[in-house]
């Protein structure tokens, strides 16, 4: 697979050419606690970097998930509709949220790599 990048809002994306898989970081799921609902975007939705893309809800509260880059939703992880706890058990694997087409793959280079993100969250 391609390179993995992280945003300061704790989303990750794994880039493969001009597409990327997006989810929330393991650090983020630890902070949120038990995930009980994920509102996924519609396939075809236009995404704008830093704007709302999805919603993740824990027992206590709802949190917005922001688009890590400009683009369009290609596919969503339907498994999360029935098993939102997958985000807790595999945040950076089977608990991915959506796949997107990147309109400007160069935007990804501005994001943190894994080492920088680990330093950012103080792990």
């Amino acid at each position, binding site marked *: 697979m391609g390179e993995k990048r992280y945003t300061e809002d704790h989303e990750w994306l794994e880039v493969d050419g001009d597409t990327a898989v997006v989810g929330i970081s393991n650090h983020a799921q630890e902070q949120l*606690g*038990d995930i*009980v*609902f994920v*509102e996924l975007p519609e396939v075809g939705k236009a995404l704008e970097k830093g704007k709302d893309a999805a*919603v993740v*809800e*824990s*027992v*206590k*509260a*709802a949190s917005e998930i922001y688009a890590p880059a400009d683009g369009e939703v290609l596919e969503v992880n339907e498994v999360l*509709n029935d098993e*939102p706890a997958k985000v807790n058990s595999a945040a950076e694997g089977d608990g991915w949220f959506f796949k997107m087409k990147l309109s400007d793959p160069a935007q990804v280079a501005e994001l943190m790599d894994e080492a920088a993100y680990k330093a950012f969250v103080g792990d």
Partner: protein
Amino acid sequence: MDQTSASQAKQTPLFALHQELGGKIVPFAGYALPVQYPAGIMAEHKQTREAAGLFDVSHMGQVKLEGADRIAALEALVPAELAGLAVGRQRYSFFTNDQGGILDDLMISNQGDWLFLVVNAACKEADIAHLKANLKGDVTLTEMSERALLALQGPKAADVLARLAPGVQTLKFMDCKPVEVDGIACFVSRSGYTGEDGYEISVPAEKGEALARRLLAEDEVEASGLGARDSLRLEAGLCLYGHDIDTTTTPVEADLVWAMQKRRREEGGFPGAAVVQKQLAEGAPRRRVGLLPEGRAPMREGTVLQNDKGEEVGTVTSGGFGPTVGGPVAMGYVTTALAAEGTSLQAVVRGKPMPCKVAALPFVKHNYFRG
């Protein structure tokens, strides 16, 4: 999140234990308390429903009222029947204002020559000021600030506590008596805020941590935080002050008429009695109800409720995920015409209408021990 940081907040006598247990400390009503431990809200919730959870509720206010006029003086501030409250018995009540709104909800027990009050942490200073300003006649108020308060809740609570306090299993729901627990002089009430059987234990502050450790050493008991306390009380249909009830909600609107005994409903004699009695006779414009979303998305506090024409008919006051229900649950106020169980409404979640139904409370059957 509260504006005060956890470091500015007051600590309960169990603070060091919360830290040692890995509690995630948050500011709540001016206190630094664990919202959850490493097990997480879901596990702590289920632990309490299936075995026993131990909660630190030492932030709540404990107040002693003494003096010959204590019962009449307190009856003038709350709509509960206190003259007929037997020694060793406890009642749920609320302070009302002149408009019939609710200033705080509280527990009141008759300890023979004094009344024992337990009030909400966020309201405790205002409640005490209100009491001091308005209690008439021979009444002395003492803050029992040297005491911690532990809640042991769940179907195994009686078995566990009886090991430390033989006989405690014979207490009935809403009994509140002096009991020696593990050799410590406590006040134990068989009540709580989870819908489960269980106890609240008022213990001298300096013995609080030792008693908590003693209880946690029992196999059936795990530490539980504020998050599980909230999801448990929501499933049990119990009101959270400042959310489901406040100065703008009357006891009739809040569906708390059961907590105003017959003599008090008829005679009045508490602040706002005229408003409350008028609503009892003619009905209230709105009512607190349970709400069950049809989908999986939780409906949070503040969510607007609409009728089938898209007109606003109410608001969600508490909402989240019910771990025992296995889905989203909520409470809120709707116009009385739409308060019947089964009524279909729309909840506007993130701009989108989502179907929900008015549902009976509680969502999870109460498991109280009535003897």
